[in-house]
């Protein structure tokens, strides 16, 4: 078998193993939370008799091991069960929320990834001169501010003061693509600003690193223009580190945007998770945890695979 195929297969197998380990951790973690679901659901209004009734009804009186294997079996068959708190089907609810989150992440990525790479190339081309300093300065300041501050600033100017984009970005079923894009523009902009710097800096650093190589000097001596040297000769060799950072940021866009969701009242998966954690709704917390872990691991495998494929030494073994 071609060694690349073996390598890729190995990565995927490792990823699945990792996911299994994560499932154990998630289960143990949710077990360790203080208080239990029944208490959390009833809150201040819990009477002892209502508590006992609810515990028995939710099956919280069964041993942890039984509950773990029952749950794992459910995931493998695509049945995530129902939320303890309101009895709604988790897979359909989570599906809707995940769709919204992916929509937001997709458009933020579509804008931010090419933008970051182009800005990185430009910064590397004019390293140490004003375009480099301007690009670095601006992107580093937007990443240095906490995302909710960036969010509130955009909300105030673009949402309330000039009313260019709607401050409430909630997605409703039945919205057309353009209406939806218009609605989510503010959170998309915030996310772009938040992830831009990391990817841009990595692109710049990786290219500058490659630029020290002898073959770049050769290319320059051949008389190629600086931009051609960077784009045709330096960039392909800088792909591996850049891809890794891009994937980390994509993962962040899916799993880490709860603060942005709250600021713009966006119905993504983050707020869904937080609400259910607060109510100790374990089936939901575990399901979302697994989805997040799968996204993270999946994107990292993808990054590995791309790095492997981008490496000529691995593609063409002797």
């Amino acid at each position: 078998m071609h060694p690349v195929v073996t390598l890729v297969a190995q990565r995927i197998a490792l990823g699945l193993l990792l996911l299994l380990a994560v499932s154990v951790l998630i289960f143990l973690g949710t077990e360790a939370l203080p208080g239990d679901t029944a208490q959390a659901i009833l809150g201040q209004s819990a009477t002892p008799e209502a508590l006992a009734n609810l515990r028995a009804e939710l099956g919280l009186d069964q041993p942890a091991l039984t509950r773990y294997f029952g749950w794992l079996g459910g995931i493998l068959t695509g049945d995530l069960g129902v939320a303890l708190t309101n009895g709604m089907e988790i897979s359909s609810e989570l599906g809707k929320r995940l769709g919204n989150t992916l929509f937001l992440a997709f458009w933020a990525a579509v804008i931010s990834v090419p933008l970051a790479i182009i800005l990185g190339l430009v910064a590397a081309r004019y390293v140490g001169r004003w375009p480099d300093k301007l690009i670095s300065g601006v992107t580093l300041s937007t990443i240095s501010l906490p995302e909710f501050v960036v969010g509130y600033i955009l909300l105030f100017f673009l949402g309330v003061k000039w009313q260019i984009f709607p401050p409430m970005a909630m997605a409703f079923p039945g919205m057309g693509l353009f209406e939806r894009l218009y609605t989510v523009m503010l959170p998309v902009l915030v996310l772009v600003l938040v992830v831009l710097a990391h990817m841009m800096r990595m692109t710049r650093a990786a290219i500058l690193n490659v630029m020290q190589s002898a073959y770049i000097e050769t290319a320059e001596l051949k008389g190629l223009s600086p931009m051609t040297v960077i784009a045709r000769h330096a960039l392909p060799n800088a792909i591996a580190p850049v891809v890794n950072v891009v994937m980390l940021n994509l993962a962040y866009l899916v799993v880490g945007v709860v603060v942005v969701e709250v600021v713009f009242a966006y119905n993504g998966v983050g707020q869904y998770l937080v609400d259910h954690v607060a109510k100790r709704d374990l089936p939901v917390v575990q399901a979302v945890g697994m989805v997040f872990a799968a996204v993270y691991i999946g994107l990292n495998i993808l990054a590995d695979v791309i790095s492997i494929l981008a490496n000529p030494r691995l593609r063409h073994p002797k």
Partner: protein
Amino acid sequence: MSNELNYLLKRAARGLMSRREFVGRAGALGVSAAVASSMLATAARAEGPVKGGLLRAGMQGGESTNTLDPALAASEVPFAVNMLWGEMLVDVNAKGEIDYRIAEEISASADATEWKFKIRAGVEFHDGKTVTAEDVVATLKRHTDEKSQSGALGIVQGISEMKAEGDMVTLKLAAGNADLPFLMADYHLIIQPGGGVGAEAAGIGAGPYKVVSNEPGVRHAFEKHANYFDTTMGHADQVEIIVINDNTARTAALQAGQVHMINRVDPKIIDLLKGAPGISIEHVAGRGHYVFIMHVDKAPFDNNDLRMALKLAINRQEMVDKILGGYGSVGNDFPINGAYPLFDETIAQREYDPAAAAEYYKKSGHDGSPIVLRTAAGAFPGAVEAAELFQQSAAAAGIPLEIKREPDDGYWSDVWNVQPFCASYWGGRPVQDQMYSTAYLSTADWNDTKFKDPAFDATLIAARAELDPVKRKAMYSELANNLRDNGGLICPMFNDFVEAKREEVGGWEPDPNGELMNGRALARCWLNA
């Protein structure tokens, strides 16, 4: 007023001309924009409700975990959602009187142990069925069953027998209770077809709006119930409740016109929001209160001198000014204020008195070790700051308080009702009996101050069956004084409901019973064009 202006005003009030156009054309006749606006508002009121449109509220207090089962409603959004699709036997109106809803007549036996509710004829559920006396009894029965986990369990437990005969529901009580109609107005007791058994969260009721889309924690959309029995409610064709828990986001959505009204305006930004164009702040004194509670059965709070010292060491006016931004009133260490019927206004207001506090503190013989006060940001808005103010005012009396900040997560299970001294809040109840019975009766599940006094219990139960208002008022006054001087409750303030709406919303009337006109704002208000 010139004829032309009058004509324009009528057209604008009927929605045939936009507000902006009216103000412009009135300006051409020499009327300033401010005067034109207020003329239009007056005219719109006189014209009565405008039908149609989509009215939206942005609300705090909703989670993805919410359900439509009225028995489980515990936060603001489910409450408001249920008030749109649901209808109770009776409602308590803004004046504190009973409004007849599904019941159209109520009569009681002389000792208030047997009550008859006549069911209004021809009230229709959203599924087309007619509301019957059997539905009412089945609903009450479901809430009596402990398995339903109903928030109204404590209310319906007192009913020993219920019977449906024709259009009459008869309830027999174990002990007389003159307040039973008020208890039936509890927001959990929404009448459902067949009592909602097997379809608890179906959202089928007899209320002014039908559920179209139910996305907990995100959005609840409704359309008008065409056969609703009460034509004074349900003006907009569609209404929506949008969950926006973040204060800034909620305010921004209102300013941008994405929602027409919001609940829980942060006291800190009221003054800023007042200056915003097209927005008005609505506030009304409610019955909810923010409290510090001491367990009277645990040291050192088992010493009434120490309790009195702490009650005297809190600066109530400062709390109202700083924590509520002035939108509230001072408390008096019992859970009742002027918003309740039969409130005794002659009870002396307890003031901040560091000298007297120091004296009581000395008398209590406390060893001088810091008294631990637990608080959390979620105990009530501003609870951490309020605890700090308390610490300072107590320090001036020589009483050392140590503030322990707890996480919001688990506060209601691990701290409240468990730790001997902590910050908390209470929403109000429609009548005094219900408030006292919920939290100060010896046997109450939520007796969070562990106050147990047989004399108090006896007077409370006697007051229930007392039909003479003068005697009843005297009994409640006795209860209030007892709690004020011996209880474990430090009640520094009653909070107002502070809300904001856009100027195109007509029909707003303050209601002290609950947020957003006791959950009826979307059904009672309308959109002026």
